[in-house]
Each structure stands twice: as structure tokens, then as C-alpha cells.
């Protein structure tokens, strides 16, 4: 990203207001971080006044709370309970509707009415990576989710290189942050060395460049470009949580009968929080509803979770009938089998599942414990001798 210095421009909050306004004028539904219910969530925003100015978040296993910063940063926090998947892969979506005529004939019509054109403000590196993961899930296989693809292709993305990580972040282990790698239209880095925050902005796409041009901002100075680079380096240095991904798929495939699953199952509530907050989890279920006359019907899809008991129901029983088997499925899928299925890890290291687990189960700790047990398992010792 440094090589793009020439095209980097310097913005203030007023320019970002101008950008939001321009996007809204062009028909985008602009969404971004905002404070609600003691958390930073994603919702529609009209200007920078809706952004969490001067707020930050403290995150730990099972803990999330907001506190004030001593500056006026607009992006001085990490990720909250929401992710952009709520716009690209809505938690509830009509897949089709059916009309039955008097003579019994069926007319079945595809899904939702109109799909909004979104502009996302403040997409982090891990979140951009999560969107790329879901691209592979919904648009990279044999069958495609056309609703996802329409939303995704029309989305305008303003990314932010993180200047502040949470204790739960481990993007550096997953290779997804704190700098945004690619896939955005415009990326911002927030500079807080003066009373007024400044933003070094660069465009990755021509449409992003056109918006920057419309703002009429000055080129970023060499010092500011350098300072932006340092913001990212400082954030990298502040991240302490780690996940060892070396041979992790094989390690997990070899750990299916590990006792650690019983240990974590004794703590896990099977509450599904981790899967709901995860920006890559894609599992869903369908439901069918009808009007009272039984002549018109709707088929909708809702987010579901591999932690729910009915998820693997087949006549005759539930396949994953214990918390042990369900937690094993979740973690092994995220960090292991996802790689076989989609050519990428299903985890981007955002830490949401850690902060929002009511009992503070930490995916990195579980993976480390499994690795430790795997490495000291009798089979390994035998193999070594």
C-alpha cells in the first residue's frame, strides 16, 4: 500500500461528511459504526456525527465494554458484535414466494424485491478478509447465491486501517490485518497527532478514485504518508493474541477424539453466540409460511448455527447430539475443514467469538490446547521413535 503514495490524499472529518453525502446522493444506503445499547454496532448513518467519535472498546474473553478516549477519533476501536455480513447475507431473507391458483397450479417467484445498494464506512482488514471468505462460500462454488452476489457487486467499501486493536484481536496470526489488504474502494488511516483527526486516504478502484477526486482534497504530505504507515506498525506491535496455524488442518483432523472436546463442552453453553457474531459463519435454515387461505406462501432463510440441536436432525435422531460434537464441528470447520472446502481458513482473527462468548471460551486457547495434546499424544511419540 505504500507504493500508492502518489495517489494518497489528506482528508478531514468534513471531507468524510462530503463523501457520505455524495454516496447518499448517488443512491447508496450508507452504513457504518455507531453507538447503540452500549456497543458499537453497524447501522445506517447520515454523517460523521453518527460515528462513535471519541469512543473505544475494551474487549476480553466474555467481555466487551465501551469507554471514552481522550481524543476525537472516529475509528478508535476494534470490531463489535455486528459484521457486514448482516447486509450482504441478511439474517432473514425471502428466497421465493408461491401462489396457488384455484385449480391447484403453482406460480413460484424468486426472492426479495429490490436489493439495496450499500456503502460500508469503516471496514477493517479482518472484515474485508471475512467478506472475501464469504465471496468464496456464496459465489465461488458450483452453485451461487445470486442475492449475495448482487449485494456484493454493488457495495462500495470504505476501509480503515486499524489504529487500535482489542485484546481479543489476532488478525496478525491469520494474515488479515491490521492493514486492509485489498478489495476496498477507498482505505483510510486515521492520524491523531493533532486536535482534529486527519485521514490519509487512498483508492484501490477507479470508482473510489473518482469519489476522492470529487472531494477536492489535497495530496497527502510525505510525512503524513509515513505517519499512516507507522499507525499500522504500532497496531501490529500491540497485538498479543496468537493462533498457530501451522499444519492446523491436519492437527485438527488428527484430534477428533481428543479429551479437550469434553473439557470445552463442560464450559460451552451451546448458546450459538459465537456463530452469530462470526463474520464468516454462513449456515442457515429455511422456513415456510402461508396465509390463512393456504393460497400464498413464502420460503425464507434465517441464520442458523451448528450449535443448535436440530441442525443435524434426521428422522431417527440428531447426528451431533452433544455439545462436544457441536463445538468440535464449529472449531474444526472454522480452522480446518474450511481450508479443504474453500481454500482459505474460515477464521479471520477478529476475536468476536471470544468477546461475545458468555463464558469466555477463547478459540485461540482451545486450538493451542488441542495442539499441545496432539503433539504429546502417544501416536505422535510412537511415530517419532
Amino acid at each position, binding site marked *: 500500500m505504500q507504493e500508492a503514495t502518489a495517489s494518497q490524499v489528506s482528508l478531514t472529518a468534513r471531507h468524510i461528511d462530503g463523501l457520505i453525502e455524495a454516496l447518499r446522493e448517488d443512491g447508496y444506503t450508507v452504513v457504518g459504526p455507531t453507538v447503540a445499547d452500549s456497543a458499537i454496532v453497524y447501522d445506517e448513518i447520515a454523517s460523521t456525527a453518527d460515528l462513535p467519535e471519541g469512543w473505544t472498546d475494551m474487549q476480553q474473553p466474555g467481555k466487551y465494554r465501551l469507554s471514552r478516549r481522550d481524543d476525537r477519533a472516529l475509528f478508535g476501536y476494534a470490531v463489535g458484535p455486528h459484521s457486514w455480513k448482516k447486509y450482504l447475507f441478511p439474517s432473514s431473507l425471502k*428466497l*421465493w414466494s*408461491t401462489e*396457488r391458483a384455484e385449480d*391447484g*397450479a*403453482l*406460480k*413460484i*417467484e*424468486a*426472492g426479495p424485491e429490490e436489493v439495496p445498494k450499500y456503502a460500508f464506512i469503516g471496514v477493517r482488514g479482518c472484515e*474485508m478478509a471475512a467478506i*472475501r471468505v464469504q465471496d*468464496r462460500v*456464496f*459465489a*465461488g*462454488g*458450483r*452453485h*451461487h*447465491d*445470486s442475492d449475495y*452476489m448482487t449485494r*456484493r*457487486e454493488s457495495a462500495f467499501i470504505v476501509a480503515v486501517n486499524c489504529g487500535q486493536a482489542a485484546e481479543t484481536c489476532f488478525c496478525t496470526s491469520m494474515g488479515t490485518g491490521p492493514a486492509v489488504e*485489498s*478489495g*476496498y474502494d477507498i482505505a483510510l488511516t486515521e492520524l491523531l497527532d493533532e486536535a482534529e483527526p486527519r485521514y490519509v486516504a487512498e483508492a484501490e478502484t477507479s470508482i473510489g478514485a473518482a469519489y476522492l477526486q470529487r472531494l477536492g482534497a489535497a495530496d497527502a504530505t510525505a510525512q503524513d504518508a509515513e505517519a499512516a504507515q507507522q499507525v499500522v506498525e504500532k497496531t501490529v506491535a500491540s497485538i498479543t493474541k496468537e493462533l498457530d496455524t501451522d499444519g492446523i488442518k491436519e492437527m485438527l*483432523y488428527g484430534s*477428533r*477424539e481428543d479429551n479437550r472436546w469434553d473439557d470445552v463442552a463442560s464450559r460451552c453453553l451451546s448458546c450459538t453466540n459465537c456463530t452469530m457474531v462470526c463474520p464468516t459463519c*454462513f*449456515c*442457515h*435454515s*429455511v422456513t*415456510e409460511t402461508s396465509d390463512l387461505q393456504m393460497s400464498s*406462501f413464502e*420460503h425464507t*432463510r434465517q441464520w442458523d448455527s*451448528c450449535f443448535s440441536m436440530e*441442525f*443435524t*436432525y*434426521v*428422522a431417527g435422531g440428531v*447426528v*451431533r*447430539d*452433544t455439545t462436544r*460434537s457441536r463445538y468440535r*464441528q464449529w472449531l*474444526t*470447520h472454522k480452522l*480446518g*475443514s474450511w481450508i*479443504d*472446502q474453500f481454500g482459505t481458513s474460515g477464521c479471520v482473527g477478529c476475536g468476536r467469538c471470544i468477546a461475545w462468548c458468555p463464558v469466555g471460551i477463547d478459540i485461540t486457547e482451545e486450538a493451542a490446547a488441542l495442539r499441545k495434546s496432539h503433539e504429546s499424544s502417544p501416536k505422535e511419540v510412537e511415530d517419532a521413535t
Partner: protein
Amino acid sequence: MNPTEAIATTEASGDTVPSPWVVRAAWRELSDTTSLEIAPADGSTPRFQPGQFSMLYMPGIGDIPVSVSAYSDDGKALVHTVREVGAVSAALCAMKAGDWLGVRGPFGNGWPVDAAADRDLIVIAGGLGLAPVRPAIQQAIDDSGRGGKTVVFYGSRSPSALLFRDDLLQWAVSGVAEVRTTVDRAEPGWRGNVGLVTSILDRAAFDAESAVAFVCGPEVMMRFAVFDLLSRGLSADRIFLSLERNMHCGIGLCGHCQLGPKFICTDGPVFPYSEISDLLTVRGL
């Protein structure tokens, strides 16, 4: 990486939204099992590979995966054979000629009938498991150039639960296949075998070293059948099983049908045992 690199272009219709189909004929197979001969309402000719399944949709109730069990005689309709176990299957079993339903698919891979071109084909089916393999047996039989023979081992709970008796009889009498049946529990008048389907594998000769086996039925039964076949010398990559898991989409998107790294709906439902042996042996995977 290009952000949209993974985004491909077109979307085949009929995958994500059902097409209207009409029941041409419906008949009871067993006390709890019905066959439906269904055709697209727009008159188009349906295609499928033996082993594939459709998502059959009953408006107001839901949609479920059901294997195609045959082509109609004129090739313009598909037969599905449904056992009544819950809401959707019961509604399907109550359908009459002229009724409409929605259909997505066919989905999934199929039985590799070609792999048995010059080898003996051993089919081991249990209960309703005969339905998904019937079209594969039919295809093998219809292939006059085939080298090997076809042997069908079929077990059911009781004599009155034996599915497709007419086909079994016709195959056996005409000599196109060797057919061996067994039941868990005899009923008055039954003079055939009693016991698990694996207990009758000695009742027909086949070249175990080179044979190809298709196994379909309850998972426990398949497990026993596989161990038996392996011990007779069949190679694990020539034993094929059709697996069943909860399915909501049928097209690799909803996540329900996963078994380890496999999506049963798109990677299967048919797998060579060599690909899934380590998965099938873990409880609750």
C-alpha cells in the same frame, strides 16, 4: 487477490427457486411408502443421473431431499419414492395425479455405473435404500455391452416391507441380475432368508477382487456391509455408499449436510468408501 475473483457470473435457474411440476401418477408401494411420477409443468424433459436427488417442495409445508428412483416409461417424467416419516414426506405421500408441487434439482453426483463396465456390480441395499440405487441397477442391466454380472442383495424389515417386488422378480426371472433378498422378521408364508443383508452375501458368487459395490441403506447397515465387503477383498475405492444428512438447500450453501470437509449434497451423496472411511467411524461428526 482480486476481491471479486471468486465471484463467477451466471446462475442456473431451478437451483435456488423451485420449478412447478405436476404429478402424472401416484401409487402406493408399501403401507407407508408412495411413488410419485412427476413431470415439469412446462413440458420440458427432465434429466438425471442415477443416484441424484431432487428437493421436493410442498407449498406451506417445506422442501426435502428425495432420490430419483426411476424414469417414467416414456422418459418424460421422474419417479420419486417417498416414505412417510414427517410433515413434508406425509404430504408428498398424500398426492394424487394432477396435483402440483415444486422441484429443485436434480442435485448431487451419481453412482459411477461406468466404473462397473467390465466388472461385477454388487448392490447391497436395505429398506428404502433400494430406491436411490434402482436407476443404477437399471442402467447397468440396460447396458448390453457390459462385461460383468449384476448381483442385488436386498434386505428389509419384513416381507411386506420389500420395495419394488415387481422389479426384483423381473430382474431375477429374466436373468439380467442375480437377486437375493432377506428380511429381519419373517411373516406367515415367507420362505426366504431371515437375517441381516450381510448374512446372505455368500448366496451368490462374484469376483470380489475386482467387483464394484454400491451400498445404500441405514448407516449402521452400510457400515456392516462395508466391513464385510472389505474382508472379502473388495478394494475401498470400489465400494460406493450413498449418505444421508439433514439438508436445507441441496446446493452447498446452508451448511447442514457437512460431514467433516464434505458437503453431502454437492460432493455426494455418493462417495467411495476410501474417501470417507475416517469420517464415518467418528461418532457425531
